[in-house]
């Protein structure tokens, strides 16, 4: 599906990503974790093609993304960035329809099936009643959902979410994560998320990729990656890890004084 192979990237002389490799299969939910500045957002920008790789390759379905047009890439990869910049004066429905742009020619404003797909994305994210509401009037969490609905309407094989739960309360975190899980299972979508909440990542993701200084420090099942040693080393802190009674998933407590 998506294969990231020994990529490197530097801002000027500062190496942000070095020799980073991992792969994800169809239908997998992956969390990329690591401390601030470890290269998560840069990695996403590289996958989306907004930065050029200095070395290595990223391939989707065995095709190098560097050789794809913006349009081709937008039909395979969707991204919800961390800092959302909602366009002023637009409604939720109008925003979600923008997700259909990769499939529309210059003179098309949307075929009936495009509206249907947009509507299904709204239904999935629970925003059906918000169709005509201006984005400016939504709460942070609702706005986040609107952008996720737009990405769902893009109907891509790979979905990148940068800190999707950052603005959400406990209940909405769970609702969003189950939506993500369901999407990946139903449509065989590969979902890659940058996450700070390790317990949440452990609970919902199939696989974790832990970054340190721009390369992969540990990778695999949550219980394998989220060990006390790994976390203490990567985050430079002191934690305690316990395991949930249901599913034996790691729960992380920060005990640094």
């Amino acid at each position, binding site marked *: 599906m998506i294969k990231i192979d020994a990529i490197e990237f530097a801002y000027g002389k500062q190496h942000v990503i070095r020799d980073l490799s991992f792969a994800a299969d169809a239908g997998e939910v992956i969390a990329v974790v690591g401390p601030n500045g470890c290269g998560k957002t840069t990695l996403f*920008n590289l996958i*989306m*093609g*907004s930065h050029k790789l200095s070395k290595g390759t990223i391939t989707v379905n065995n095709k190098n993304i560097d050789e794809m047009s*913006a*349009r081709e*890439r*937008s*039909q395979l*990869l*969707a*991204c919800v*960035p961390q800092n959302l*910049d909602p*366009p*002023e*004066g*637009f*409604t939720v*429905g*109008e925003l979600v*329809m*923008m*997700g259909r*742009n*990769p499939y*529309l020619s*210059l*003179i*098309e*404003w*949307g075929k*009936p099936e495009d*509206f*249907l797909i*947009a*509507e*299904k994305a*709204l*239904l*999935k*994210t*629970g*925003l*059906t009643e918000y*169709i005509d509401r*201006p984005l*400016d009037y939504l*709460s942070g*969490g*609702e706005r986040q*959902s609107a952008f996720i609905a737009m990405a769902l309407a*893009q109907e891509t094989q790979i979905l990148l979410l940068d800190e999707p739960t950052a603005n959400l309360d406990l209940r*909405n975190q769970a*609702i*969003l994560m*189950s*939506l993500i899980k*369901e999407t990946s299972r139903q449509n065989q979508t590969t979902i890659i998320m940058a996450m700070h909440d390790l317990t949440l990542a452990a609970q919902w993701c199939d696989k974790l990729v832990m970054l340190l200084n721009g390369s992969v420090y540990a990778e695999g099942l949550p219980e394998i990656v989220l060990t006390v040693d790994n976390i203490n080393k990567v985050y430079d802190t002191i934690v305690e890890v316990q395991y949930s009674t249901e599913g034996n998933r790691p729960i992380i407590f920060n005990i640094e004084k």
Partner: protein
Amino acid sequence: MVYDTCSNQKLSYSNKNRTIYIRIARRIVVGLVVILAICIIASSIGAVYIPLSDTLAIVINKIIGIKVKTNWPEVSESILVNLRFPRIILAGIVGAALSISGAAYQGVFRNPLADPYLIGSASGAGLGAAIVFLTGLPLLALGGGLLPVAAFVGSIAAVTLAYFIGRCQGQIGISTLILAGVAVSSLAGAITSLLMIKSDPNLRPLMSWLLGGFSGSRWVDVFILLPYVLPPMIGLVIYSRLLNVLQLNDLHAQTLGVNVNRTKTIILLAASLVTASAVAFSGVIGFVGLVGPHVVRLIWGSDYRHLVPMSAILGAGFLILADLGARVIAIPTELPVGIITAFFGAPFFIYILKTKKRPQGN
């Protein structure tokens, strides 16, 4: 907020939104009818009042070509056909042009205050046109094209300059762009004045042209202007959906498959061509590009698929009425139309400045 994943709810959005073409088309038709009514009423009013019934009869006979009553005074017909009709139509086209390019500039720069006048595009076009005026080249050289082409070059140069001055680390703030535009505008204005002082004392045509206005408009102006403004205006309407996507930030728009740089360049070129052609025939008139699009925003929201065509229609109506004001407020003299547009436009500018929600950059 509840995520409802059950899928047997009735899907109504698709039905509702399938009709977006129809809704927009209906608004455009209604808008055009209103503009036609404004044109006819504006034709009746002036230094010489012509009864509405005569105006209507003349329109139907002369323009549509159906014979109805023909007992109007000959002088009325002459005033309408030779003076007022071309003037009003030219004002309408220029208003539509300035307003649609205002909407396009606002979309590309993601800046609600962008207006051909405020970002320097109009003054740049003015300078380009003034150079042609003063070099004594025949104005109708290149099939009437010299003036618009010179204005176009000036307009593009000014917008590009303002853009690069206002840009800071790849970001461009709302206020910096306007400040840069004002600086470029002043510079272009100063050069224009300098050129005037250094040249022939017989400057009356240039002076009155620089003040902006439509007195002395002829049918030939309308016919020369139309082929310059109509194709890029249609282009802007076609690009209106992409203007929507450009309202996301550039990186995000790119992930939706938009070639951001190419799209922005095309829209800027089209908007500048429209502005330049309008300025070449009317002089520099401010604020039309601000009033038109913002009235549309207040009524119908920010969707550019409505905003672009409806801005053109509202801009046309606004400038026809402003020109009517310029003609009749101080009879027998005429005011420069720019005074009227500034009178309405400046408070608008202040209103937008005070209510804009996103203090971008600096």
